[in-house]
């Protein structure tokens, strides 16, 4: 797997979430802006379009230095189609709850795959 050679360089944790989630994560220190002025985080507000979220998600997953992508579950819901299609090992996509939306394991793409595996 060619990915394994490259994954040693994956060190960043990217984040797509609402304002509070992203602020908190940035406080923890995951925020990074590289030389091309690309940030590894996106704050999703009311005026953020679906397309922007999709594009950012795809951009994060294509970056070679991103190891984990954290995404609020209610935002993950809006791009559920792309998430369900995503099955690469790197970067790992984790769905996290937000202040207003508690975590629902029924909706998690990865857990759905777990069920598929245990179902057969």
């Amino acid at each position, binding site marked *: 797997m060619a990915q*394994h050679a490259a*994954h*040693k360089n*994956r*060190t*960043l*944790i990217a984040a797509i979430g609402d*304002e*509070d989630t*992203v*602020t*908190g*994560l*940035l*406080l*923890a*220190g*995951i*925020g*990074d*802006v590289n030389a091309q002025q690309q*940030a*590894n*985080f996106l*704050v999703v507000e009311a005026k953020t379009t679906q397309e922007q979220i999709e594009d950012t998600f795809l951009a994060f997953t294509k970056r070679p230095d991103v*190891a*984990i992508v*954290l995404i609020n579950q209610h935002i993950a819901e809006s791009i559920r189609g792309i998430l369900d299609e995503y*099955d*690469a*090992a*790197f970067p*790992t996509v*984790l769905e*996290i709850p937000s202040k207003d939306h508690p975590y629902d394991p029924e909706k998690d793409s*990865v857990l759905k*795959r*777990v069920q598929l*595996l245990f179902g057969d």
Partner: protein
Amino acid sequence: VAYITGDIGYQVRENAKRATFKVAAKQENVSGVLLPAFEAEVRAGAGQFELTGLGRGGQQVQRARTAYVAAVAMLVELASLQTAFVILDEIIKVTNRRVNAIEYVIIPRIENTIAHINSELDEQDREEFYRLKKIQSKKKERAARAQKEIDESARRAIADGNLHQAVGGDTPAARDLLAEQADEDVIF
């Protein structure tokens, strides 16, 4: 909702320049599968947010920061497990396909070849057996005929009154018991 400390969110976002919380990847070999695992790495430069909110409710901000650091550490562990799962899932599928291919394609083919080879060997065995039996019977026939001729010529000689010839002094076929019997092959 308005907070006394103002919108530190904006401040935090603008100040995020280089990541101080990173992950280091390492490989682990689990029953033949190379699984990656993430380890949280917190750099010493974590002081970038120490002054955030200073003088304006900073203690709560620091508490929030500690909580988030712990949360992210746990998330890193979860991410390791999730990656391991995704990779194992893929490998299980591939292995299942291989098992099915071997079980339903390769093994029947080889079994057919074995059966074919066995039947060929049996047939050759039968042919060989038949051949040997044939040779045996032919030899017996020949020996019986030769014996008949010798008896015939001996009888003629006796009828002619030539006893010496009857006993086989001149006959090319030697009436030597040992020489006759030495020829037979041992056939099962």
